[in-house]
């Protein structure tokens, strides 16, 4: 009886646990956040009351929110574009070489073995102004006269945290793009060469179309991940100096966790979700077009 049911409705039965998990772990927080965002929900035991849109109003009229949103975008764009570019470059190089491929692949993967807390700790140590080895060596070689304030100078802080993020994220791009490079049939290149296509043209018309679908998917996953990432910046600068590295998750954290105001922080979450959903929608449209081109 059960066997028959499973046999007939296999898809439904198989999907059910995943749906349950997704719905429980996703619908629940979304529903509760939407609900809280219209209330004065606080952890300090105040009577719950509806406050309409005033949480949204308070967030949207706070100039710091826009600063945080802008910082998040800058952080995401710098991190993502460099990760993609360097990852692509490394993948091409790895695909090209004939010896030591395994060795280089392992070496390039190293940053990925670092838990985030060790990433931030290690880089804070390396870049420290008083006893960091980076400043130490630069001073020793006479390249700089005073230590560079990587994390304390508002001009450098955002670049520094972005680059640390790039360091951490490049391996993922490199390995995935390498994998997709390896699926390109070699005879395509040979045929193109016989037809007299230049290296640039071969890249443009053979390599790129093959790689960009997987790259597109990676970009979506990483955009979301970077946009939402909290620990890297929080552990390295806490949003400072000034407001130069305050991102939306840090902004929301200060509301929700330290002011005990779930209502306010839920409103930030919902706004962030709307923004991300919009970005993903755009990505999906582009991805659709690319997929169509590939299948043609």
């Amino acid at each position, binding site marked *: 009886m059960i066997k028959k049911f499973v046999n007939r409705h296999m898809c439904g039965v198989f999907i059910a646990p995943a749906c349950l998990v997704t719905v429980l772990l996703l619908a629940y927080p979304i529903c509760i956040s939407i609900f809280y965002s219209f209330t004065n929900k606080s952890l300090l035991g105040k009577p719950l009351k509806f406050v309409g849109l005033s949480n949204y109003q308070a967030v949207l009229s706070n100039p710091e929110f826009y600063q945080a949103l802008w910082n998040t975008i800058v952080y995401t764009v710098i991190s993502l574009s460099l990760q993609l570019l360097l990852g692509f470059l490394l993948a091409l190089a790895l695909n090209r070489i004939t010896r030591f491929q395994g060795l280089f692949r392992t070496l390039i993967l190293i940053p990925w073995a670092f838990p985030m807390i060790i990433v931030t700790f290690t880089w804070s140590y390396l870049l420290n*102004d008083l006893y960091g080895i980076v400043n130490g060596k630069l001073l020793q070689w006479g390249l700089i006269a005073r230590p560079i*304030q990587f994390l304390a100078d508002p001009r450098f802080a955002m670049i520094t945290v972005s680059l640390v993020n790039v360091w951490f994220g490049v391996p993922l791009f490199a390995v995935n793009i390498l994998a997709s490079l390896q699926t390109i049939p070699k005879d395509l290149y040979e045929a193109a060469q016989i037809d007299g296509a230049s290296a640039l043209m071969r890249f443009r018309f053979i390599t790129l179309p093959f790689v960009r679908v997987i790259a597109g998917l990676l970009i979506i996953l990483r955009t979301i991940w970077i946009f939402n990432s909290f620990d890297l910046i929080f552990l390295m600068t806490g949003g*400072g*100096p000034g407001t130069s590295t305050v991102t939306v998750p840090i902004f929301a954290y200060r509301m929700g966790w330290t002011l005990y105001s779930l209502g306010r922080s839920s409103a930030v979450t919902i706004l962030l979700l709307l923004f991300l959903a919009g970005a993903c929608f755009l990505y999906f449209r582009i991805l659709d077009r690319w997929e169509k081109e590939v299948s043609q």
Partner: protein
Amino acid sequence: MKKRIAIILALAVSASALTAGCGNSKKPAEPVSTSGGAGEASGKSSEAAPSEGNRTGEESQEKAGDPMAAVTDDGTEKTITYWHTFTEGARKDYIDQMVADYMEAHPNVTVNVEVYPWNVFTQKWTAGLAAGALPDVSSVNPDNLFAIQQAGAVLPMNPLIDAVGEDYFLKKPLDNFTYDEVILGIPYYLHSYVMWYRKDVLKEKDLEVPKNWDELLAAVKAIADPPNQYGFTIAMSKNDQMCAQLLSCFAKAEGAALITEDNQGNLTDPKVVKALQLMADLYKAGSPEGSINYGLSEQNDVFFQGKSTFAFGSGFHINGVKQNSPELLDKIAAVPFMGPEGETLGDTAFVIGLMGWNQTEYPETVYDFIRFHFENERYIEFLHLIPGGQLPATTEVANSEEFFDNDTIRQFQDEIQYIQQGIEKGTFIGMDFGLTPAAAALTSQGIIEECLQDMVLNNTPAEEAAKKANEKLNAAIQILME
């Protein structure tokens, strides 16, 4: 197929919405009733968790000499959870041993110990409050304690004080933990902030110990010789609260409060603005440039490594220097913080306390276990783990010879005296007019730190930066108090 998935989805959504609903309808009700109870002091506490055991405890308490231990040892199995923040070796081992001793003395009680570093404590408590799952006993700092009280989760300590007598603990620290006659927690160890300095560096430059702000600034200017020697390290990371605490030290010394009696930010007070200006000047004159991004441990490191002449800190600095640069131990000394003209009108005290959760099943065991922390020999052993850093909260130990019978404490007799005076005169940051939730806005939001960063990075005039910070502070206070 599509339909079926839709049905499953709909079911699951409604189920989760239901759980969400339950969570909501239940949550606000509990804290309201319990915070009401907290207002009415002692006896109420056990009503939060009625059980046979503690009822009899309430009754026998008035007659029997040691009701708590009696109830605790009534033979029934009891399990309590204990969170503490003493993560490092010696103190962690000490607590483990103490808990083992307690369980040996009370075989029917099991204490589950869980250790967290300070920096994640707020997160643990916030989540715990949200879900209504907290430890029976916990170590706590003043701002967290008060937030927990606001959330209606604090077990009043009045019955414990009634049992041990009012004089058992030093009066002032206990007063600092009292709100509307409810004793929210028991101070475990005390300290207050003093200004540490390097005797040898001052001597080398032929300088006196500064007696007012002008002298301090002049000394810092004369000494600063980066990267070999810095003047006064001022840590401004928004993840920490070092600027807020230091500002509080300077402001209290000149008699200004950071939060007014009616819970408004007071950063625009000319005295506070002047203190902010001093801190910005001190930073520019001789703090490591990168200290904008320093927190407590980085700031301490500079002093412990012998690279900062002045430092702000408690008696913990003695231990820090001893561990990192033992050769410097003879060269450090401390004085109380002073105002612009050398006045010392107030101090910033800090207390690590012990608290109970009012939903605990075994309040008597909680009281008994907390009292167990303070048994003389054991307590002195604990205080001596960080000599000079942890000062006694019980009257007997504070006046005992055993406590002062320690080489380090003897060596830093004067400093410890200053710190004790600070505890006597002092209040917590932002709580000049008694416990208030508004104080949390000073320390958790990085507002003061951001204000100083603004002053030193953008050369924003002190008045303007203070005005901006005050607005932010008031906005945060409003969220906390509304």
